[in-house]
């Protein structure tokens, strides 16, 4: 009925394993043991730094490139980004050109940044609320067929967006008569596509909340709505924060859904659409690509840092029952 007995057994099993092997390692040299007891050994630190370096170098190259003059980036006199440290030619012009609001030729990224923000904030909120409501019912509701339904929702993750876009667009424009080139279409489409994964991730967390907590609330006379808002959601903050950051990124970085539903107007098109347009026009504005790409990751990175303090125990923390 409750998680406790199983968890205790698991604990015993876990602790039992090293116990059984104790004899083998009792002979280990004390010094060796002291060095090894911390997982952050010199070897681990070195390995972590190597991974960090390999993962960062490509982006760092783009970062350096974004400050180099146009002639150094493209064309016959261009060379590798690392040469910037030898020729010392750095400029802010790329960023000024990329964000300038004036002139029909300017990429005018600031407007698209606002569009992206206006698309992503409601979608993230909608997905979090709707997915946690559904996940709560799948985990703690009591009706026949909920396992089967949950597996079905899980399987919906594989429906390729490319296949779902056209029927949905027809529905929006012909049946619902939603105005073309408005945020509404983008909000609804993104929310739909975010739900299966959101429900899957949150279900795994919410189903591991100890049953006693919910049972106790029920005995005290709390109904489903009270349990959901007062107990489930506060306890799920780490999971909600993790899902929020990923949902934010998926929508922020989406190009496909935007291409279909934004109608291509500068009024609603997100920044990815603009980035694709800039890199699509061969030649003339190639030198803006690195700067524009960097402008577009500032806000997601800020969100990541802002939410990171909630990652103390994230999705599925304490999944001992696994």
């Amino acid at each position, binding site marked *: 009925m409750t*998680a406790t007995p199983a968890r205790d057994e698991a604990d015993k099993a*876990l602790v039992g394993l*090293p*116990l059984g*092997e*104790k004899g083998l390692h009792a002979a280990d040299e004390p010094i060796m*043991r002291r060095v090894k007891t*911390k*997982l*952050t050994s010199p070897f681990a630190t070195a*390995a*972590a730094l190597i*991974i*960090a370096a390999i*993962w*960062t170098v*490509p982006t760092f*190259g*783009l970062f350096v490139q974004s400050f180099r003059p146009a002639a150094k980036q493209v064309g016959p006199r*261009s060379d*590798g980004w*690392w040469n910037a440290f030898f020729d010392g030619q750095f400029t802010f012009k790329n960023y000024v050109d990329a964000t300038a609001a004036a002139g029909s030729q300017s990429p005018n990224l600031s*407007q698209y940044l606002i569009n992206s923000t206006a698309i992503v904030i*409601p979608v993230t909120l909608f997905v979090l609320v*709707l*997915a946690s409501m*559904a996940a709560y*019912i799948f985990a703690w*509701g009591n*009706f026949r067929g909920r396992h089967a339904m949950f*597996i079905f*929702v899980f*399987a*919906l*993750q*594989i*429906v*390729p967006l*490319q*296949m779902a876009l056209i029927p949905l667009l027809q529905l929006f424009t012909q049946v619902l008569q939603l105005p073309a080139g408005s*945020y509404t279409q983008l909000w609804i*489409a993104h929310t739909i596509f975010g739900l*299966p994964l959101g429900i*899957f991730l949150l279900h*795994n967390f919410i189903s591991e909340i100890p049953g006693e907590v919910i049972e106790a609330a029920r005995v005290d006379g709390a109904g*489903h709505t009270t349990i959901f*808002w007062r107990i489930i959601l506060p306890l799920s903050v780490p999971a909600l924060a993790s899902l929020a950051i990923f949902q934010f990124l998926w929508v922020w970085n989406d*190009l496909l859904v935007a291409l279909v539903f934004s109608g291509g107007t500068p009024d609603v098109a997100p920044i990815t659409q603009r*980035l694709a347009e800039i890199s699509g026009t061969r030649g003339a504005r190639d030198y803006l690509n690195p700067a524009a*790409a960097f402008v*577009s*990751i500032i806000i997601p990175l800020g969100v990541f840092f802002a939410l*990171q303090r909630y990652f*103390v*125990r*994230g999705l*599925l923390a*304490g*999944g001992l*029952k696994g």
Partner: protein
Amino acid sequence: MEFVGGKLLQVGIAIAAFAAVIGLIMLLVDRAPKSTRDKVTVIGFLAPAAILMIVGLVYPAVQTSYLAFTDAKGTPNGVDNFVWMFTQPEAVITLRNTVIWTVLVPLLSTVFGLAYAVFIDKARGERILKALVFMPMAISFVGAGVIWKLVYDFRGPGIEQTGVLNALRVAVGMEPKQFLLDAPENTIFLIIVMVWIQTGFAMVILSAAIKGVPVELVEAARLDGANPWQQFRNVTIPGIRGSLVVVLTTITIATLKVFDIVRTMTAGNFETSVVANEMYTQAFRADEPGRGAALALVLFLLVLPIVVYNARVLRQQREIR
């Protein structure tokens, strides 16, 4: 700046409308007579998500399943699309590539993500170190395309290289290499890009899970003389098994669906195509929606084992509870 105000207003209205709908549902659930309250709760909590998913995912999926058995004009043609799929010359290569992608990407991303999460756990500057590996997730595929062009770029021998890897090759006296053109290893170089992106996802979730493993368990194992590797194998891994399944599953599905990387870097040429890319090409470029739909069905079949596995894990969890 007036356009900013207008947009803010739209966002405000949308959120207010959404809050009103949710509030109404909660009110109805609370006010329902006791005898039907459980039923009303289930319906009220599930209905919004269910309606959206039926309209936006189930209906298109059904339509796609039907399309898979029709030709370019929409007339039913039996299993012709599937026959075409498996008889075209590139079919074997496309399928082979898809299998390589779905095996390597989840495996490598999870291994690197887990190793990194363990290594930096409680280290000084953990937040910054996390952000470094997380950063690729924050970059759009368009941005990633630009970034990896700076890594894989090729220029003829004798001309100064602009790609990092070829500059290194030339520096040690090797010939520059066409990383994205030379089959079959070019598929590996595309996979590296996906691993680079997905490792951040694995790392964030697994790092959170590691912090959820009770400290007492690790401490007990340590006092019992378990070395760090044994602590990791016998305490940490069982403690985060649930998260590992979630991470592997999510990345596998994302990999099966990936087409942006292939699309932007090679457009599926030079023997690098995958099923998702073929699907896009057939449905949107070649005007063969039937063939595209048939490929989508194959993708679904490929993911079926993962669905079955997760269903089993779920059932085991319920039995424990």
